């Protein structure tokens, strides 16, 4: 059975929701296809239980040899936003112009100034807390005031200029971490996406095909004509569509095109993620009082921008307010025979003098990082998506090394010594694969180069990756696309 729909949006994450929101606000009709279930109270469910287990939500990637990476995304209404930590900076102006400025890879077909009004709109939609930061021109118009600087920000920030508030969607608390007597879950960010979802769910013209996978796009000439769907129970259907917006992430958007045999341009190529490391930096003095309003409140751009980007990756540094996770140190000390007050004093001293900083580093776009279809199939009968992602390259590694070296140098007045170095949470930023640009898959308006009614948005549209967290830019691109579709009647 087929239904005719004005716009079909595939994926209900931040991208899909914000495109839909613009269209609905203009009185248009939107159907969202989502593999997961629609739970508008998902922010009350623990993270690990937000995806209902069905054949449609079984994660459908396989890893090529040597490509182990824990790709993180969510199959639920709200998408990967339900897993988001809420860190919400923009990209740097230079991130859009790496070819023009440094001769690197490619420029984006749009610049920071083009995106600025949409950044403002996205930040309002996501309730971002932020304030003026020297890295981001025009960053004086956030809907919520910036998080107050934490003790770590106050101590480290003056030595790590340019330093300023980290834009973040996490709710600001009088105290973070919350009191030990407090009940309930940690600070929740999924509520920001779900607030948009709740608004849409009540709107005229909005509908959701939940528990349904978009299997393939059918085309005729230069248009997509229908979306083939498979429900969790195996039922096949199709939706006739005047316009289709693929708003999933870098793996899923590419996989949809590949399953549909739409291989125009570098579909699936140039998959990107960030390199994350976490450094424990021991200081010669305590940082207290510990006051913080949320998990991360400050952002350093000391290693973000410079001509050296021709040889090493840009990096941003974020003090981590919860501080050192004591448990491993505690286990070691107890095993070594430390006991009682002496043990506790040792842990208190260690905790108060150790700054934990999170470092996100830009990696280079590489052609040997890509997704393709596997010969194996998932429970819906669709090919698995095979991901090839060789480990961090020299460009990113040099970026990490420079931060390690420079951090001790910059923080020398505090007697800083790096005593711990861990890999951070890889795999959450699924970028590239359908990038925008003349040699990419979509144009500057995110329209497919050949199919006039197909648009691809989300992280897949990024031509290069920056060092900064992508969600706000993903959201700004979605708002921009939504308004373009409304304005141009595209």
């Amino acid at each position, binding site marked *: 059975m087929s239904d005719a729909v004005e716009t079909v949006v595939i994926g209900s994450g931040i991208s899909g929701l914000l495109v839909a929101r613009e269209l609905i606000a203009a009185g248009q009709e939107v159907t969202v296809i989502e593999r997961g279930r629609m739970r508008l109270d998902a922010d009350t469910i623990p993270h690990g239980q937000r995806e209902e287990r069905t054949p449609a939500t079984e994660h459908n990637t396989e890893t090529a040899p040597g490509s182990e990476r824990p790709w993180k995304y969510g199959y639920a209404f709200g998408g990967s936003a339900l897993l988001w930590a809420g860190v919400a900076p923009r990209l740097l102006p230079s991130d859009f112009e790496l070819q023009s400025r440094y001769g690197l890879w490619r420029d984006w077909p749009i610049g920071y100034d083009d995106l600025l009004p949409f950044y403002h709109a996205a930040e309002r939609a996501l309730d971002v807390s932020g304030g003026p930061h020297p890295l981001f021109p025009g960053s004086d118009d956030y809907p919520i005031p910036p998080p107050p600087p934490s003790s770590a920000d106050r101590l480290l920030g003056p030595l790590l200029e340019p330093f300023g508030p980290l834009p973040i969607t996490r709710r600001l608390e009088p105290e973070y971490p919350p009191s*030990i007597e407090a009940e309930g879950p940690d600070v929740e960010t999924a509520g920001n996406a779900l607030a948009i979802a709740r608004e849409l769910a009540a709107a005229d013209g909005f509908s959701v095909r939940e528990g349904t996978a978009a299997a393939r796009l059918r085309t005729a000439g230069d248009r997509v004509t229908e979306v083939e769907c498979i429900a969790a129970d195996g039922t096949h259907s199709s939706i006739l569509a005047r316009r289709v917006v693929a708003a999933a992430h870098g793996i899923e958007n590419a996989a949809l095109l590949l399953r549909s045999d739409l291989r125009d341009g570098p579909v699936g190529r140039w998959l990107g993620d960030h390199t994350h490391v976490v450094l424990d930096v021991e200081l010669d003095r305590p940082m207290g009082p*510990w006051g913080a309003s949320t998990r991360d409140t*400050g952002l350093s751009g000391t290693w973000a921008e410079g001509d050296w980007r021709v040889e090493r990756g840009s990096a941003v540094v974020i003090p981590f307010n919860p501080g050192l996770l004591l448990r491993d140190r*505690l286990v070691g000390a*107890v*095993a070594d025979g430390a006991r009682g007050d002496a043990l*506790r004093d040792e842990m208190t001293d260690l905790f108060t003098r150790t700054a934990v900083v999170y470092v996100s580093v830009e990696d280079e776009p590489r052609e040997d990082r890509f997704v393709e279809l596997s010969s194996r199939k998932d429970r819906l009968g669709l090919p698995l998506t095979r991901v090839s992602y060789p480990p961090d390259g020299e460009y990113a590694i040099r970026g990490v090394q420079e931060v390690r070296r420079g951090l001790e140098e910059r923080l020398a007045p505090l007697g800083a010594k790096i005593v711990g170095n861990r890999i951070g949470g890889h795999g959450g930023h699924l970028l590239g694969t359908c990038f925008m640009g003349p040699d990419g898959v979509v144009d500057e308006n995110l329209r497919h180069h050949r199919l006039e009614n197909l648009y691809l948005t989300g992280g897949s549209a990024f031509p290069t990756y920056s060092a900064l967290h992508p969600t706000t830019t993903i959201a700004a691109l979605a708002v921009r696309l939504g308004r373009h579709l409304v304005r141009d009647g595209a």
Partner: protein
Amino acid sequence: MSSKRVAKVLGLSEDEVGLLLKRARAKLGGRGLAIRELAFLLATAPGLRLLPRRLREAAIRPLVYALVPGPTENLLYARVSRTPAAAERSGGSA
């Protein structure tokens, strides 16, 4: 009695360890916590110090992870005061 021993080893007051044990019990259940406590107490008993360090760590870790799993418990354990004066919170950029 065992909570008293745990408190003594970790340098916590009985009230503090009681609170941490209560939180851990709510997550793990009474039996899961009791097994961890037993392993911890055995590994930290004075007579068993001759066990290889690796084994001591393996026995100590489950209870420590249960009691001090994350930031909130860190703050209690490390005796860190959380909140500066409200006046300090009105600032913008750091």
